């Protein structure tokens, strides 16, 4: 659990960074359509799952520390 809570935020940061790059590239050249590619859709799912889990862990520890 501890390892997961350490790794997940970095996975979230890396995927978020990648999607920001895709978004900028798509604005410059929409034909490339990076955000909507099949592989991007899979990455988006991983990004969402990782963001949800790391947020849940963060909320859990925050509440625990408050107690």
């Amino acid at each position: 659990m501890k390892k997961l809570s350490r790794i997940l935020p970095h996975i979230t940061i890396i995927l978020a960074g990648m999607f920001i790059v895709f978004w900028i590239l798509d604005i410059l050249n929409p034909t490339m359509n990076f955000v909507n590619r099949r592989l991007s859709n899979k990455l988006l799912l991983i990004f969402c799952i990782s963001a949800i889990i790391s947020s849940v862990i963060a909320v859990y520890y925050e509440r625990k520390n408050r107690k």
Partner: protein
Amino acid sequence: MEDAAKKHKMLPFWALIIIDALGICAGLGVYLLFDYVMPHRLDVKTEVVAEVDSDKSFELPSDSSAAGDADSEAEPAESISEHDLGRAKRPSLRGDSEPEREDGKRNLSNQYTYNVDSDEDEFERILDASTSIELLGHGRTDNADVSVYKKSVLDGDEKITYFIADVYVSNAGDILTAFAEDTYGKNIKDTVYNMAEENNALFAVNGDYYGNAENGIVIRNGVKYRDTINDADVLVLYTDGVMRAYHPEEFDMDKVLEQGAWQAWNFGPSLLDGKGGLNPTFNTTSYLNSKNPRSAAGYVEPGHYVFTTVDGRDRGYSSGATLSELAAILAKEGCVYAYNLDGGKSAMMYFDGRILNLPDGGGRDMSDIIYVEKQEGE
């Protein structure tokens, strides 16, 4: 105790930021390797949607009116400087010979399309500029007549050098396309030169690089490979020789197939309004509207097409063309419709065994070409 302390010693915050930044770069690298470099053969359900309409044949220009002699050999350089050549060549619309089709309406923008205003001043400036013309070659077969020219407009840093292929065919079926390695797929690439040689081409120009996108209409030589529409304009060559450019919102696949689509490309934008005038807006982004090497296809009348490749990124020789300038180049040749194909390093024109232009960075491999075949046995 010290060991435990070392174990729990955390990396400084700046080191974490650097590691995450490197992680982003590595992620992008792996993504591009899988999605942009590695070739994937696509097993799609293809469908024959059109066959060559052998009843519809167009007259080729007589040999005497063609530029140069009947061999496919390059003519000696001939320079002509003609003012206002373009205006003299503006189209004589053979409206009676063309079936009625809905003309392209513009300004159909919504949040999914990218409209950029065209530049009337740039368009007029190219139309009014004197053109230096050099005949590079002429080739004739039983079914096609192709003349290629090197032309330039403007001077100094603004000079634009471009290559024109004036193509007459006796049937729309003589405008052919080919895939790299004769295979439909993603990231399957080859040079324009190799594809032209493998397909016994007299003349060839780069296509729309369909293999770089997952969506978009792909109909080649009467076979439908992909029918998912994207945000880009579509160019259709029908079996009766008519060529039409469509905005994605007005494109109706069923109607187009019903009318006999022989070829369809999905890149764009469409440049001319169907009457040889500049489109008021282009379905693209301002970033893609900058001066660049470009290739484009133009339509004069059934059986008569003009292809151009503009060199660029080399000031003094050729600065490249904006989309309005590209539209003017094709309007000057008498085109009523014109359509931007893949450009940049992809912009390449082949004629009779050689690449005519000077591609930026030596060019790049790509997925498809448009070509006219040499006579069998040539």
